[in-house]
């Protein structure tokens, strides 16, 4: 059992956790809990299979359990919240801080998928395995996350402006 196998993945686990939860310390706590569980369950990992995807699976489970514990973290209703456009850019360069703010407004489920695809560059099959959801669900969450971000970032007006007389 070679600890370097897991250690070399820590930077990417930290990147994903940071993007997922936002706060640096909360993110590192998530990584720490993930690593502890990974060490305890390392014997369950099949040598030769994708260790990184396995670690993301563990992190997903830890994240979901923590979110369940902290009720305010449950964001399943976020989809139904009214969308508020950040500003109407003419498709010019995206402001990174706005992108981050919009990312936070996604549901946790959508955020996981878009980050695993866009930042971690997992294949859709790997995302499907990591989150233990069918590939069709991966695609629909990805599609909705991207479209919601596009709308909120002003790529398309969200609602017609009322003409005030």
């Amino acid at each position, binding site marked *: 059992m070679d600890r370097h196998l897991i250690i070399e993945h820590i930077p990417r686990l930290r990147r994903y956790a940071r*993007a997922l939860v936002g706060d640096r310390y909360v993110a590192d706590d998530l*990584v*720490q809990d993930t690593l502890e569980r990974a*060490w*305890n369950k390392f014997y369950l990992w099949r040598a030769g299979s994708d260790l990184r995807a396995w670690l993301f699976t563990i992190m997903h489970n830890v994240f979901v359990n923590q979110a369940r514990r902290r009720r305010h973290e449950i964001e399943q209703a976020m989809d139904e919240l009214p969308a508020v456009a950040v500003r109407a850019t003419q498709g010019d360069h995206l402001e*990174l801080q706005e992108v981050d703010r919009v990312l936070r407004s996604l549901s946790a489920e959508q955020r996981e998928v878009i980050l695993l695809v866009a930042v971690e560059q997992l294949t859709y099959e790997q995302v499907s395995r990591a989150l233990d959801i069918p590939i069709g669900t991966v*695609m629909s969450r990805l*599609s909705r996350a991207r479209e919601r971000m596009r709308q909120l970032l002003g790529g398309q007006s969200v609602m017609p402006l009322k003409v005030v007389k």
Partner: protein
Amino acid sequence: MKPVSEAELHAYVDGGLSESATAEIEAWLRAHSEDAERMRAYSEQNAALRSLYDSVLDEPVPAALLAVRSSAWRRYAAAAAIFALGIGLGWMVRGTFITPQIVPVSLARLAATAHAVYSPEVRHPVEVTANEEEHLVGWLSKRLGTTLKAPKLAPLGYELVGGRLLSGPQGPVAHFMYQDGRGQRLTLYVSRQRGEPRDTAFRFSQEDRVSVFYWVDGNFGYALSGEMKREQLLQVAEVVYKQLNP
């Protein structure tokens, strides 16, 4: 032109298509400006998200994360040790259960363990040395909530080395160490005892190589430990007992 699926469009954005499939999508996008605009926005999102978070990869990994395995292992080892101690104590308690003196058994055991841990220390046998005896006794008295005394054993050839504060099952423990001219060490373990104040007789216990004389006086348990024969330790223990119970 063959219609393309939403999934194929995303796969195109994420670079997951073969060369020929990519060419097909590009042809589609040339003819469908709305989809083309959407895919351009999605690609921008990918790039923006990466540039937001790629810098985390360059941060040094916090030591706490690198140490995770060893800390998990330490917790396991500590739990195993406590479990083993529990079995050991349970076993000893079983042997003495007919008498109500359960606490002193663990007192002797704890004192012997502390003796075995600290007496071989060469450089740091104590926290506060005998040079500051007044400070040492005052400090430990304050922590235990009683007036302690460090017995004077010079007439028997043992000088106070110093003492330290330990953590015991009932809270703080005062630990005094003595040494003779040949480097033979004795330790006196003083801890608060649970339950009603009471007195017990002077008892002896052999814990592996460590001999222990111990007794309970009111709310406090005392244990004198040394790696020596019972008769030898008894001489010292009687002096200690008399000094502490004048």
